[in-house]
C-alpha cells in the first residue's frame, strides 16, 4: 500500500518536473542558444528589455536603488529611483551569487519564475481536482506562443514577474484558512506592488470579487480578517515606494477611463486558442456549475482574469493586454476541466497515469509547429537580438575608458531603441534619424543636427525629491526656462567629446554617410579615432567647441 502511494506521489512529481523542464526548454533554452551565459545581452529584441537590463546593472553598480543612475535619466544625479524595484533587486542579487552577468541573470529569472507560476496555478487547480490540474498544465506552455512571447522578448518583464506573485497571491487566498494566513497574503501582495503596480490593482479586483463570492457562501469572516490585516501590513511595507509612485507614475499617468480595441504589439485573444477552444468552452460552461463547490478558487481565477484580460474595453487600456500574456496559465483550468469531463464519459475510474498520459500528448502537440493551423504552438527560435559582439565591445570600451563626457551617436540601425545606448554608462545624445535622412537626401554635411538628449523621462519628467512628500521635475523646470530644451533640438556637434559612427548598416547609404562625416571630422588634427572594430568607430574631440567640420555639399 505504502509503495503504491509513494509511486503515485512520485509519478505526479516527476510529471511536474517534466513540465517544468519543457517550459524552460520551449521558453528560454532554445531562445538562449542552449547557453546560460553570453558574451553580450542575447535575445534582447526591443528597447524595453535594455531599459530593464541597464537598470539592474546600475543597481548592482550603485549598491542600491535610491536614485536612478545619471546615464538613465539624461545626466541628472538626483532623480529618485522611480521604477518598481523588486525584479531589479532579485536580478542583481542572482547575478552576484550565480556569477552570471545581470543581462543573463535577470532574463533567465523571468523564464524560471514564469515556469514556477504555472506550477503554482497547478496547486490552485489541484485543490479542486488533481486530474483536472494535471490536464490543465500543458496549456501553460502557451505563454511561450507567439503573441504572449513578446512579454519576454520585448521587455514586459515587470508585468510578467508581477503576475508570478499575483498567482502566488491567488494561492494564498485559496489557503486563507491557514493559521496566520495574513503573512502569506502580505508577502505576495507587497511583492506584487513592488514588482508592477498594475497587477496589484488586478489583485485588489480579484480580492473584491472573491470576498463577494465568499460572502454569498457565508464563509467570509476569516477572509475579511486576514485580508484586512494583510492589506494594512502591505501598505506599511510598500509605503516608501508608494509615495514615490504617487509623485511619479500616478502624477504623470493618472488613471483615466479609456477603451482600447487594439494594441500596437501582437495581441493574444480568445481566438488564439484555435481548436483548443472546444475544450476550453466545455470547461468554462462546467465551471459555472461548480461555483458552489467549496474549493473552486481556480475557476474564479480563470473567470476573473478572463474579464481582466478584456478590461481594455472598460477602462484599463494596454494593461489588460499584459494580463493576457498569462492567459494560458490563468485559463488552463478550463482546458483541464473540459478534457476531464469529456474523458469521464469514457473512462469512469480515471487514474493519475491516465491523466498524465493525456496531458503528455497535449504537451507534445503544443510543441509541434506543423500543428499550428489547428492549435497554438510554442514559438521556438533562437535570436541574438539587437546587440552584436562588436557593438557590445564598444559599449564596454566606454564603460572602461570614458567618464562624464558628452557622447553623440550618429545613425545606427538599432540606435532608435534608445535604452540600448545607456550601456555606455554615460548620458547619450543621438542624431535624429528623420533629420539625418533629410540632410542625406540634400547631400549636405552640416555642423548642426537635430539631436536628442536621451533619458527615461516619459513616465516621470525626471522627478527628484525636495522632501519626503515634495517633488520637483527637472523636465518641467527646464522647459519653463527654455521651451526649446525639451528634448530634441538643433545642436552643434562640435560641442561633443566623442562621436560614435556605425560602419555597417542594412541600408548601406546611411553607413556611407556616417563615414563621410567621420572623415570630415578627422581632418581636424584635434579629432582622432580612439576606438574601432569591424562595425563601429569612435572619434574623440579634444577641443570641444572649436569649429570641427566644414559644412558643404557632396556629390
Amino acid at each position, binding site marked *: 500500500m505504502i509503495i503504491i502511494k509513494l509511486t503515485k506521489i512520485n509519478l505526479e512529481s516527476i510529471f511536474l518536473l517534466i513540465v517544468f523542464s519543457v517550459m524552460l526548454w520551449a521558453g528560454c533554452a532554445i531562445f538562449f542558444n542552449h547557453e546560460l551565459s553570453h558574451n553580450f545581452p542575447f535575445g534582447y529584441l526591443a528597447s524595453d528589455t535594455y531599459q530593464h537590463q541597464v537598470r539592474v546593472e546600475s543597481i548592482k553598480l550603485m549598491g542600491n536603488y535610491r536614485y536612478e543612475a545619471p546615464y538613465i535619466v539624461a545626466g541628472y544625479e538626483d532623480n529618485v529611483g522611480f521604477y518598481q524595484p523588486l525584479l531589479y533587486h532579485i536580478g542583481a*542579487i542572482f547575478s552576484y*551569487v550565480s556569477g552570471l552577468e545581470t543581462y543573463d541573470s535577470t532574463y533567465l529569472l523571468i523564464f524560471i519564475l514564469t515556469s*514556477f507560476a504555472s506550477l*503554482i496555478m497547478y*496547486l490552485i487547480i489541484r485543490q479542486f481536482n488533481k486530474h483536472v490540474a494535471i490536464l490543465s498544465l500543458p496549456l501553460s506552455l502557451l505563454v511561450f506562443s507567439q503573441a504572449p512571447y513578446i512579454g519576454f522578448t520585448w521587455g514586459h518583464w515587470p508585468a510578467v514577474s508581477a503576475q508570478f506573485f499575483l498567482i502566488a497571491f491567488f494561492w494564498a487566498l485559496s489557503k486563507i484558512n491557514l493559521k496566520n494566513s495574513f503573512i502569506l497574503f502580505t*508577502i505576495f501582495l507587497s511583492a506584487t506592488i513592488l514588482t508592477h503596480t498594475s497587477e496589484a490593482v488586478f489583485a485588489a479586483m480579484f480580492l473584491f470579487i472573491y470576498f463577494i463570492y465568499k460572502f454569498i457562501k457565508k464563509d467570509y469572516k476569516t477572509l475579511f480578517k486576514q485580508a484586512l490585516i494583510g492589506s494594512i501590513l502591505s501598505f506599511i511595507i510598500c509605503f516608501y515606494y508608494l509615495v514615490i509612485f504617487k509623485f511619479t507614475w500616478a502624477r504623470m499617468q493618472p488613471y483615466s477611463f479609456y477603451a482600447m480595441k487594439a494594441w500596437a504589439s501582437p495581441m493574444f485573444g480568445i481566438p488564439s486558442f484555435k481548436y483548443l477552444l472546444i475544450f476550453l468552452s466545455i470547461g468554462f460552461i462546467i465551471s459555472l456549475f461548480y461555483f458552489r463547490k467549496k474549493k473552486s478558487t481556480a475557476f474564479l481565477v480563470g473567470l476573473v482574469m478572463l474579464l481582466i484580460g478584456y478590461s481594455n474595453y472598460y477602462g484599463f487600456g494596454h494593461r489588460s493586454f499584459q494580463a493576457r500574456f498569462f492567459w494560458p496559465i490563468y485559463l488552463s483550468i478550463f482546458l483541464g476541466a473540459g478534457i476531464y469531463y469529456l474523458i469521464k464519459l469514457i473512462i469512469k475510474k480515471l487514474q493519475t497515469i491516465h491523466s498524465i498520459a493525456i496531458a503528455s500528448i497535449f504537451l507534445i502537440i503544443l510543441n509541434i509547429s506543423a500543428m499550428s493551423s489547428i492549435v497554438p504552438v510554442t514559438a521556438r527560435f533562437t535570436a541574438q537580438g539587437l546587440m552584436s559582439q562588436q557593438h557590445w565591445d564598444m559599449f564596454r570600451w566606454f564603460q572602461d575608458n570614458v567618464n562624464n563626457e558628452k557622447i553623440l551617436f550618429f545613425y545606427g540601425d538599432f540606435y532608435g531603441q534608445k535604452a540600448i545606448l545607456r550601456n555606455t554608462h554615460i548620458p547619450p545624445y543621438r542624431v535624429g534619424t528623420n533629420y539625418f535622412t533629410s540632410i542625406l537626401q540634400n547631400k549636405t554635411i552640416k555642423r548642426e543636427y537635430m539631436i536628442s538628449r536621451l533619458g527615461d523621462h516619459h513616465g516621470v519628467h525626471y522627478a527628484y525629491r525636495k522632501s519626503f512628500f515634495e517633488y520637483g521635475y527637472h523636465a518641467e523646470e527646464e522647459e519653463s526656462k527654455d521651451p526649446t530644451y525639451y528634448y530634441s533640438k538643433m545642436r552643434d556637434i562640435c560641442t561633443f567629446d566623442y562621436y560614435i559612427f556605425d560602419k555597417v548598416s542594412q541600408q548601406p547609404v546611411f553607413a556611407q554617410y556616417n563615414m563621410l562625416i567621420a572623415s570630415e571630422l578627422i581632418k581636424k588634427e584635434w579629432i582622432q579615432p580612439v576606438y574601432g572594430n569591424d562595425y563601429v568607430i569612435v572619434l574623440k574631440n579634444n577641443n570641444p567647441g572649436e569649429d570641427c567640420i566644414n559644412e558643404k555639399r557632396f556629390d
Partner: protein
Amino acid sequence: MKKDLIKKEAVSLVYILLAGIVILKILFYNEDFPTILRTLLAFFWLFILPGFSLMYYWEDKLNFMERFLIGVAVSAAIIGTCSYYFGLIGLNIKYHGILLPLLLLTIGSIIIIKNK
C-alpha cells in the same frame, strides 16, 4: 515536528538538486558544467532554501510540494523586498546574496525548532 520528516525532505531536496543539474545540462548543453552548477546552486541558495524553511511554519497543513513551490515565491518576494530597503538604508547590494538567505534560513530554523 518529526526529525524523520526533515531528514526525508532534505533528501528530497538533494534529489531535486541532482535532477536540476541533469535537466539544466540537457537543456543548456552549450554551457560549461561549472556555470550550470553555480547557477543552480545560486538559485537554490536564494530562492528555494529560504522560502522552503520559512514554509515549515505551515508544515502541518501543507505538503512538501506546496511548501516547495510556494517557498520559491516567498523567497523571491522577501529577498526582493528586503534587498530594496536594506539598500536604501545603506547596506550595499553585493552583501545581500549572502546575508538575506542566511537571515531567512535562521528564521526558518527557529520555526523548525519551535515546531518540534
